[in-house]
Every structure is written in structure tokens, then in C-alpha cells.
């Protein structure tokens, strides 16, 4: 049987978090929350005679993304009309950049399994979003709040060769958009949408076989599932002697299957032509330079800095910088005096575990960075041991209370009283003569057994370091 590899290109549609819409002054709102048709005006409802005006902030945001994706920002920009009829498209055409996009020829570096891969960015262009249709059976309702919201379409080269790469690309791109402050990255609000172009070919070949395009993937997870399914489907088609047909597909999230929407030969002719209502837009170099100078630190740079400045492993640094809010949390903890590695361990360990378990976003975590540092200090001071610390952490996560208060309230402070512990150690040595003999005979692994006994007696509150030392001293004396 032939082995196949996929060839994947992604188109990412990112809504831009501008104050107003792309071509009118209506505010950009959360279209999943706002009352339908409340942020509309004559322009975005396409009243006869209205005209579009380009939103400068949207252009600025698009330039930011273009620069972050290492693109050329093109001086000459043309907005075109893309014509098709649909009830969510009030003008009967979408204003979009076609022949002359704002940004082109960039790349994005991604890491998959420790290896860096460079994914080409063909272009990024500005356009306007459509409204939203809700089908009610025999009729449909149209909400135009979203109509005219600025969209940046970011088109990659078909450079991804696995679903993992497609996922890594999507996450990295999302991180950059959030870092830039141009998109909040919340896919449940539909502010980030994906289209995947997929083909497969025998491993080692460089041919490009017929591709299919899966539209309207509303999350990275949906993109991953759809892509996995479609790759398998195409391989099966080729293997059974068939031929993949060029087509536009949808993805059913319930069945997890892709389905044909339109074959290529039935595809719309969009009749693009330059929008005569909008003269060409010339972007001045000085403006681009200004924007470039004001770009925030992006994930890659931050990761580099975490490695060099905080001596973190590349893996920890990557995990801590993928989400801007996490990186901010981490840095705030360091600002509060936390040790870089200790904070990294807590964040990537317990914090992530509980966040995942309870589905809590970092913005909603009740443990402040300073409170985390306080907890670490209690461990360092020997007030609690690391096992207890995890319980304290969980309690903090639950209630938002400070570490010291929880330790105090629950009497969790570690027993470091050498006299008290020595008596206990003596008792355990006396009670377990066989084990002592075996230990003295060379079975040093039994140390953990002895410590475990002490912990059981003290409900884990004994200072493990002191206990270990006590046992060593006692055994040395017995030899």
C-alpha cells in the first residue's frame, strides 16, 4: 500500500477588534451577544446611495499583522467588489482586496516535535464580514450586526505536511493576533475562522494533486478534526482507484465528516472588479515604519528572552509564551519576586492542570501572581512541604484565599521540630527491625519506606529533609 502525506494550506479569517466597522462608523460588537440589528446604519445595510469609507484603524491593524508575519506591506492597495447574492450580504457584493492585497510574501515559523518549520504566508488582505443568517425552518432571519466588521484574511502557502503542523500554525497565528491586540482569539465568538485546502500525495513525491477546500471551520479543533477526516477520505478515494474532485466542502461537527457543497465546475463567478467607490489606497512607508517601531514583543521574541533571561528550557518557554495572558501572568509573578524556574514549574504544572480540569481561563484564575509567589516562599522557608503545597494551591485556586491563611487555618505547617521528629524516627526504627537490617545490608532504596512511615504518622506534614537526615544519622550510628 502506498503511503500518503497531506499537503495543507490554511486561510484564516480574523475579525479585527477595531472601534468601528470596515466601511462605516457602526461599532464592532460581540455579535453573539448583541441584540440583532442594533449596530447597523444606512451604509452597512446597503441603503441605496450610501458609500463606503475605509477604516484607518483596520488598515493599521492589518499592517501590524503583516509585519508580524514578516510580509511585505504593499504601498498600492485596491479594494474590489466580489459579487454574489446571499441574504447576509446586503450590497450583493463583498468589498475585498483581490489583485492588490495589503501584505504579501511572509512566513511564520512553527515548532512541531522540537523541530522548527517555516510556513509561507502568501498574502493577508482586508475585507468586510457578512451578517449572520439564522434558519428557522420555513424562513430565515438576518442579523446585520456583523455585516461590515473588518476581516483580515491570512492565506498560507500549502506548506503544511501534517495535521499537527496545521494545528501548530493556527495556534501560533492566533497567539500573534492576540499579542498584537487586534483579535481576542476567542473562537466561540466566531472572531477567528478557518478554511483548509487539502490534498494528499504519495510520500516523497512533490506532485500537487487535486485539492478540496473546507469552509467555515469555526475553531482550531474543528479545523483539526475536519482536516484529519478529509485526509483519510482522500487517501481512501485514491486507494480505491478513484479520483478526488476539486470542490468546496463543509464540515459537520456532529458527524465529524466533510461533505460536498459545490463542485468546481458549479462554482460562482465572483466578477471581481475594482470598487469605483474607493480610490486606490496608498500606504506610506513612514506610517509602516511607525507601526513597526511600536509593535509589542511577539511570542518568538518573548520565548527567546525567557530562555536567555530566565534560563528556562525551550519547552517551558514555548508553553509560557503561546498564550499572551499566560505570559503576562508568568511575568507578573516574577515581578512579585518569584524564582523563574519555580514559577514556571507551578504554572505549567498545577496551574494548567487545574485550569484544564475546571475549564478556567487564566484571566479568571483566582490565585494572583503575587499569591503564587507567597506560596513558593512558604515551601522555600520549609513551612510546608511540596505535597502540602499542592493541596494549599488547590485550595487557593478554589477560594482565592492567600497561602499563609490556608496553612494557618488548616494547621498544615510542616513539622520541623527535630526533637519531635527524632522520637518518631526512633519509634519507627524500633518497630521495623527487619527493614532496618536489610537497609544496613545495602538495600538503601528502603529509605523511602521509612520516610513514608513518618509521613503517614504525621499526615504528610513532616519536613522530609529533616526526617531523611535523622534516619541517615541513626543508621550510621547502627553500622
Amino acid at each position, binding site marked *: 500500500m502506498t503511503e500518503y502525506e497531506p499537503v495543507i494550506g490554511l486561510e484564516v479569517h480574523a475579525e479585527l477588534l477595531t472601534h468601528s466597522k470596515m466601511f462605516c462608523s457602526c461599532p464592532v460588537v460581540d455579535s453573539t451577544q448583541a441584540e440583532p440589528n442594533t449596530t447597523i446604519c444606512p451604509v452597512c445595510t446597503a441603503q441605496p*446611495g450610501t458609500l463606503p469609507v475605509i477604516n484607518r484603524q483596520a488598515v493599521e491593524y492589518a499592517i501590524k499583522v503583516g509585519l508580524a508575519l514578516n510580509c511585505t506591506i504593499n504601498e498600492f492597495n485596491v479594494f474590489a467588489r466580489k459579487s454574489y447574492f446571499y441574504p447576509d450580504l446586503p450590497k450583493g457584493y463583498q468589498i475585498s482586496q483581490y489583485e492588490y492585497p495589503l501584505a504579501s510574501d511572509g512566513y511564520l515559523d512553527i515548532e512541531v516535535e522540537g523541530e522548527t518549520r517555516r510556513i509561507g504566508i502568501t498574502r493577508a488582505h482586508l475585507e468586510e464580514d457578512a451578517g449572520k443568517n439564522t434558519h428557522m425552518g420555513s424562513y430565515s432571519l438576518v442579523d446585520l450586526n456583523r455585516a461590515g466588521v473588518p476581516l483580515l484574511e491570512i492565506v498560507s502557502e500549502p506548506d503544511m505536511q501534517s495535521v499537527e503542523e496545521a494545528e501548530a500554525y493556527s495556534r501560533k497565528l492566533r497567539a500573534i493576533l492576540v499579542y498584537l491586540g487586534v483579535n481576542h482569539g476567542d473562537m466561540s465568538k466566531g472572531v477567528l475562522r478557518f478554511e483548509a485546502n487539502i490534498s494528499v500525495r504519495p510520500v516523497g513525491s512533490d506532485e500537487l494533486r487535486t485539492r478540496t477546500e473546507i469552509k467555515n471551520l469555526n475553531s482550531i479543533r474543528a479545523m483539526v478534526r475536519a482536516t484529519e477526516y478529509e485526509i483519510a477520505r482522500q487517501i481512501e478515494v485514491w486507494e480505491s482507484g478513484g479520483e478526488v474532485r476539486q470542490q468546496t466542502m463543509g464540515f459537520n461537527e456532529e458527524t465529524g465528516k466533510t461533505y460536498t457543497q459545490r463542485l468546481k465546475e458549479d462554482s460562482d463567478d465572483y466578477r471581481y472588479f475594482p470598487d*469605483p467607490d474607493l480610490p486606490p489606497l496608498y500606504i506610506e512607508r513612514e506610517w509602516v515604519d511607525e507601526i513597526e517601531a511600536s509593535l509589542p514583543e511577539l511570542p518568538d521574541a518573548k520565548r527567546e528572552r525567557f530562555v536567555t533571561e530566565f534560563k528556562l528550557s525551550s519547552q517551558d518557554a514555548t508553553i509560557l509564551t503561546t498564550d499572551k495572558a499566560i505570559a503576562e501572568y508568568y511575568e507578573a509573578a516574577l515581578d512579585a519576586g518569584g524564582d523563574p524556574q519555580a514559577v514556571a514549574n507551578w504554572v505549567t504544572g498545577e496551574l494548567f492542570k487545574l485550569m484544564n480540569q475546571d475549564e478556567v481561563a487564566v484571566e479568571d484564575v483566582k490565585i494572583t501572581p503575587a499569591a503564587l509567589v507567597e506560596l513558593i516562599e512558604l515551601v522555600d522557608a520549609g513551612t510546608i512541604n511540596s505535597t502540602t503545597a499542592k493541596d494549599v494551591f488547590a485550595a487557593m485556586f478554589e477560594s482565592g484565599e492567600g497561602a499563609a491563611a490556608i496553612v494557618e487555618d488548616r494547621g498544615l505547617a510542616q513539622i520541623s521540630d527535630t526533637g519531635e521528629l527524632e522520637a518518631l524516627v526512633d519509634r519507627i526504627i524500633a518497630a521495623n527491625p527487619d527493614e532496618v537490617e536489610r537497609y544496613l545490608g545495602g538495600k538503601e532504596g528502603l529509605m523511602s519506606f521509612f520516610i513514608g512511615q513518618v509521613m503517614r504518622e504525621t499526615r504528610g506534614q513532616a519536613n522530609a529533609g529533616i526526617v531523611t537526615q535523622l534516619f541517615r544519622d541513626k543508621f550510621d550510628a547502627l553500622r
Partner: protein
Amino acid sequence: MINLTDLTIKDAQSLLQAGEITSVDLTQAYLDRIAGIDDTLQAFLTVTADQALAQAQQADQRLAKGEHNPLLGVPLAYKDVLCTKGIQTTCGSKILEGYRPPYSARAIENLDAAGAVMLGKTNCDEFAMGSSTENSAYQVTHNPWDIERVPGGSSGGSAAAVAGRLAPGALGTDTGGSIRQPASLCGCVGLKPSYGRVSRYGLVAYASSLDQIGPFARTVEDVALILNVITGYDPQDSTSMNLPVPDYTAALTPDLKGVRVGVPKEYFIEGMQPAVEKIVRAAIDQMVALGAEVKEISLPHTDMALPVYYLIAPAEASANLARFEGQRYGPRISAGSMWDTYKQTRGEGFGPEVKRRIMLGTYALSTGYYDAYYLKAQKVRTLIKQDYDRAFEEVDVIACPVSPTTAFKIGERVDDPLQMYLSDVLSLAVNLAGICGISVPCGFDADDLPVGLQLLGPAFGEETILHTAYAYEQSTDWHTRVPEL
């Protein structure tokens, strides 16, 4: 006793300022005349009598406070492709029957602020597509000089209203000659401003890169007064130019000494009525008598203008008219499915000429044809523009006829689109080049039908053509003739 509806805007304004007449008197006089004569002319689609009188009262209050403004209290008529807040705006189409826009066109907002009074909305070819106003879905407008003839188009209602003394001034729109040609055929003055001079915001688009709003009036000076108010940069129209706005009446001086006038040989074409050529050439001689230097020039790509126009304008129209599908405004003709409803609504809502142009434009933009038609047309458009650029290095103004013929009979050309398109053969290159042009009455043919002299100036050269037209007009009395109705 003065006949109020015979007054020019300028003269009416003097009397209003002096308190000798009121805006209510003036407005009522026009409303009465509309009530008496518009059954015959059919120039208005909507007469807004109540609003007009209310506006007139407000104007009178402002006048009483001593406010000076050349259009304060002056009644005007607006072509029905211009949006008027809360007042039906149909574009002469069934597809917008009953549509009351939620806003007014910027030009009309400016006129409202200046205190002008709206008499109503005038008839036009559906979506301004036509040269005779016969493509209106509602009515046929008649030429005041011969009611068996067309007023020209597409702004035929505005031209007929002004020529027929149903309004002292009006707004029209000009995409390929739709102000100048009806002005010529109705014997009034009509000016197409340079592209970008007047905001298109609220002008229901036919061909966005060609459309421009402009004034009609009985005299050049009145046209200048209206232009003063509607002109200017509008941040809501990205194609409007941010240039200083002069006082256009300041340019109106009576002699033409040193004015270089070019007469393009390509504008005296085969098929032109001999009377038209004779009358226009006589007008050019008159300009020489006023001190102008006249020379023959060449605009070699003139014969390309018609085919280029009929690719670019329909292409733009095919997208501009996509929004009319009965969902948000206008009648919806429900059929089985959503797509059937779209088809039924558009199929019944649009008239044949509009459908013809939508199909033409859709074809010209289609994959495989775009380069050969639309793109090629844009290239030739550049050549046409360059013709004018070169000409205006040598001359200040270009003088020529507006239309090859005087007003033709109603029904005469409706079944022959190509013949109809030829009505605009001398006017549409101006829109392709984005320059300005004016039509000013320059005589009558043997049937007493008016002929217009077309004067063209470079982009944003409105002062030059107004000056030239004014000097010519003041040396003749064509503009003082009144049609018998």
C-alpha cells in the same frame, strides 16, 4: 404684477431679501403651477406640497431675521435618484416603489441647510439609464416645447420642470449626458460638475465612476448659485475631492477676451441634424465676437467613447444594482424558495433597459471576458482622458453640440436601443474623462425646438465654463424664451 414663476433664482432672491415677496408666496405659486400644468408635463413623480410650505415658512422666519443666503426660501426640484429622508425615492423603478430613505443625499442636506425648499421629486429614466425619460416605470415626461416630444434623459423630469416653469432650479445627475442632454433638449442650462466635485453620498448609484450630481436652472448665474451650495468635499464620499470651493458667481463676467476655445472636429458627426450644427457654429461665431480665440482641435478617440461607456457603466451598474432584491426595501415578490423570490422580485421590479445593462455588465465582468472587455475599456478610457488633457494644454474651453439632434418624438426610439444610445454620443466622453461640462441654450430649429451649446472644461474648471457660458448667454436672449403651455 410680477409672475412669480417667471423669476430667476437671482431675481426671486432679491425680492425675498427685500421682503417684497415671501418664500411661502413663491412656493405656493410653483405648487399652483405644478397642479395646473404637471398633468400635461408629468415632470414630477412626487410633489411634497406640505413639506414645501413648511420649509418655506421656516425660510421666511430666517429671512425675517435678516439672514442672507442666495438660496434661502428658493423652491427646487430633485431628481428621484437622490435620497430624501422620509420621502419616497424610487429612481423611476418599480423595485423601489414605496421606499422612504432613512437619510438625505449630502447635496440635498446642504441645500436644506441653505434654506432651499423642496417642491418634489422629478421623473427620470429608471436608475438614470436612458436618454429620454421614457424608461421610467411610472410615467412619460413631455417636453415643454412640444408635448409630443421627449424632454431628453435621464434627468428629463428636472429639465422639463425648469423649462416649463414648474421650478426655478433643479438637481439632476449626469452619468453620460443625463443633465446636459435634457438641458439641451428642453432649452435650459444644465451643468455636469467634474467627477469628485459634488458628493455622491445619497445619489443612488448607476455607474459610480461616472455619476455626478449637478444643477439645472434657467440662467447660468442661477446654476452657479446652486453649484455653490452643493459643491465640496465630503468625508463620506471617498471619491469627492478635498479642494477649495470658489464662489462660482465671481467668475461670471461678460466678455471672452483671451479665452481660447477649441472646436473638436470629431464632434460634428454624420447623422447630426444640419440645424444643430448650424446653430452651434453660429454660437461659436458669437463667442468670437465676444473676444474668444477659436481654433479647431482634435479628440481622436471620440468614437471609442460610446463602446467604452457601454462596457464600464453597465459593469458598475451590474454590481450597484445587486442590492435590490426585495429584502430590506422595495416590494418583495414572494416565490417558492429564497432564490425564486430573488428572481421574481428582480424580474418584475426592473424594466427592460435596466435588465439589458445588468446583463451587459455581468457579461463584461465574467471570467474569460474581463480582460477583453472591462479592462480594455478602462485602457481606452485613459486614452480618451488623455485626448482632453492634451486639448486643454492648447485651449481653455471646448465648444461643441450636446446632442446630434433636437428633441425627438415620444416612442420614436424606444424600440431601438442603439439609436437611443447615440443621443449621448457627444456627451458621454466627458464623464469617462471626469471633466466638467455645461449646456446653455443657443438657438431653436425650424420646429422651435431648443438647441444647446456644450462647453467643456478641464477637471475642476467649472469657473471657466461658467464664465464662458455666462458671457455667451448674456449676449443672446435664448434663455428668455418661454415655452407656451
